[in-house]
């Protein structure tokens, strides 16, 4: 038993930290947040060279074949830096293809995702805003052995940046009659339209589909067989997001603690007052507890998949509430300056607002925990 990271993982963390500190300090984050691409192609290439884009992909397709625990290490650090990039989206797309795709499909798409030449994402939300298979109402209209897809997918992460859109759609009435198509950027009738995100370090938008044909070679697994795969990719999305939340929340805590040590009022650093000290202590409690919940969930994905969904839901529900509170308290404890563009705390507040509902909000995940508990 060892509930901690291995030495190699600590090493990985130091490498990532070094890369981000050197390549993407906060000024660079701010610059990228205002850029039209929303990320740096140069940095993206470097990530690929360092092997971090295909971290969990099979070696045969250019990956490093590591585990979700390793991914957590990577994402904690990108979250800590608010590193702007389509990393989570691409990781999810790759993991779904590796899970569900044929050898042929893997050979077609995975190397490009691993070597940084292609970006992927998954378009899982529709107008009803219901997460998971039940929310997929877009129906594939059969034509021969292919389907035609028409409709709109909402709040698709990195929709404009992506070269591959994974598009779940409905092929029948039973809740689990779901297929997932891989739609390439240049497909006729498919187009991504960006929308301004509340957190400019995270890009999003709408995917428009107008009679887009998807043949059998574009479907991951047999038609009507991707329901479980969709649930799984959403779980992994929640996990990846929580890993970034840990890093971001810890950073928000750290900069607020530093501020509280320096800022003086009524003759004392404000961190001397319990009205400031105690909320900071509570933030610490929440960050540490979230780490425990999430590390266990990451371990479970690879080692005890049956408990993974509930473990992930616990982490995401807890993360949503905790990070929301950390964002608000962090900026409140900064006083007026937290309100200005100059201080970094506001960037973390925006991230907390974005992360609240992404891959399911607290209510959604607590409902899942309740079901898992037999309630």
């Amino acid at each position, binding site marked *: 038993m060892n509930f901690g990271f291995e030495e190699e993982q600590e090493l990985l963390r130091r490498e990532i930290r070094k890369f981000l500190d050197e390549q993407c300090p906060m000024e660079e984050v701010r610059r990228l947040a205002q850029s039209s691409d929303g990320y740096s192609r140069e940095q993206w290439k470097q990530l690929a060279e360092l092997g971090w884009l295909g971290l969990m992909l099979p070696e045969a397709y250019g990956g490093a074949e590591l585990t979700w625990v390793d991914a957590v290490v990577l994402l904690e650090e990108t979250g800590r830096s608010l590193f702007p990039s389509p990393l989570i989206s691409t990781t999810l797309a790759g993991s779904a293809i590796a899970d569900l795709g044929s050898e042929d499909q893997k050979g077609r798409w995975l190397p490009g995702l691993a070597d940084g030449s292609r970006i992927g994402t998954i378009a899982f939300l529709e107008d009803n805003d*219901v997460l998971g298979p039940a929310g997929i109402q877009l129906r594939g209209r059969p034509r021969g052995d292919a389907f035609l897809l028409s409709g709109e997918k*909402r709040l698709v992460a990195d929709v404009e940046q992506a070269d591959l859109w994974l598009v779940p759609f409905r092929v029948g009435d039973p809740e689990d009659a779901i297929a997932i198509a891989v739609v390439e950027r240049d497909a006729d009738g498919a187009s991504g339209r960006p929308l301004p995100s*509340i957190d400019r370090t995270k890009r999003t938008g709408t995917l428009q589909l107008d009679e887009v044909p998807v043949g059998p070679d574009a479907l991951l697994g047999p038609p009507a067989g991707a329901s479980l795969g969709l649930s799984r990719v959403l779980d992994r999305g929640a996990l990846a997001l929580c890993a970034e939340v840990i890093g971001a929340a810890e950073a928000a805590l750290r900069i607020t603690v530093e501020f509280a040590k320096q800022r003086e*009022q*009524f003759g004392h650093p404000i961190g001397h007052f319990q009205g400031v000290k105690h909320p900071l202590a509570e933030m610490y409690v929440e960050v540490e507890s979230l780490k425990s919940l999430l590390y266990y969930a990451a371990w479970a994905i690879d080692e005890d998949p049956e408990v993974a969904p509930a473990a992930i839901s616990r982490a995401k529900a807890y993360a949503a509430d905790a990070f*929301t509170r950390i964002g608000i308290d962090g*900026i409140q404890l900064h*006083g007026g300056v937290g309100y200005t563009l100059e201080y970094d705390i506001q960037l973390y507040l925006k991230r907390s*607002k974005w992360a609240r*509902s992404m891959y399911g909000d607290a209510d959604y995940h607590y409902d899942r925990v309740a079901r898992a508990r037999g309630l």
Partner: protein
Amino acid sequence: MDFSFSTEEEAFRQEVRGFLEENLPDPVPTTPEFLREWNAKLRAKRWVGFAWPKEEGGGGGSLIEQYILKEEMSLRRAPPLGSDFMGLAWVGPALIRHGSEAQKKRFLSDILDSSSLWCTGYSEPDSGSDLASLKTRAVRDGDEYVVNGQKIWTSAAKQAKWIFNLVRTESSSRYGGITCLLIPMDTPGIEIHPIDNLSGRPGFNEVFFTDVRVPVENRLGKEGEGWRVVMGALANERSGISESTEMTRKLDSLIELARNSRKAGRPALEDTSVRRELAAFDTRIEAMRLNGMRNLSRQLKGDPPSSETSINKLLRGALEIRMAELSLEVLGSASQLEGPWQNAALSFHGTVIGGGTPNIQRNIIGERILGLPKD
């Protein structure tokens, strides 16, 4: 106990309603021409500076009529009573109590005519909520003061013609060394730097003073009396009733939002916890309104204003945060996008952050009202 109004008061309410009926189009225009005309009409009725003494150009109205006037104006979403907000809230009341005849003559009618625009210089970078720790120095040099230092969080500094400025004329006494100066904003040596708020829009300003020379006749009150001058103005009518009207409007919009949003596929208003939360908001806003009326009654009886307004500030602070959070919850995944509700959730109200942080209000109640020892 009696919540009814006298015949005269009811007649006054009818007068206000009639005036609004006749003069305020729906929707309310926002053109400068309309506002100019509107202010002129209000001025003609002596409704600007409604409770100021008649001999100073005010309306000589009672507190209760002022309450009626504000309530009716707020219900019809009328523009404010006069456009020189700081002039009416701070400068006028201070001039009436402490100004020389020459100063009153020079400034009061401009404030009432909405032809002046004042800003205020209270906060400084290192003072935060601890206003009395201000450091901007004014040194007497013949018939002039020479001012050096910096103010922060000054609204409308770019547009303002004058600043109502607190400076330190003596360093040994914390409160007693503060003096109030009235300074034209175009005096050489004044520089204004806008502060971008977290939405990237300019909001507040920093104002720098470098060897700014101010004639002694521009001092309001005696040297070292600045704290009294400001606190006297602060103790002006502040029942906080109109704040509750503002919050009611926010709640109405939030209810509309919940009515038109879907949560997990069902109308958000059908969610029991959403409905109860809205009812709890309604209850707290009603408490604010009634707290305000109790304050007003105490003032009518001639009780000196005390720290009661801290109560509504704390209620409001907590409400602003919780209401913003519920709006995001109700928006669902759309909370990831920019939008009016989302921006509101980022732009904290002044009761939550800045000058009157909740912790300061709690200290005020704990120390001044409950008599607990100072920290």
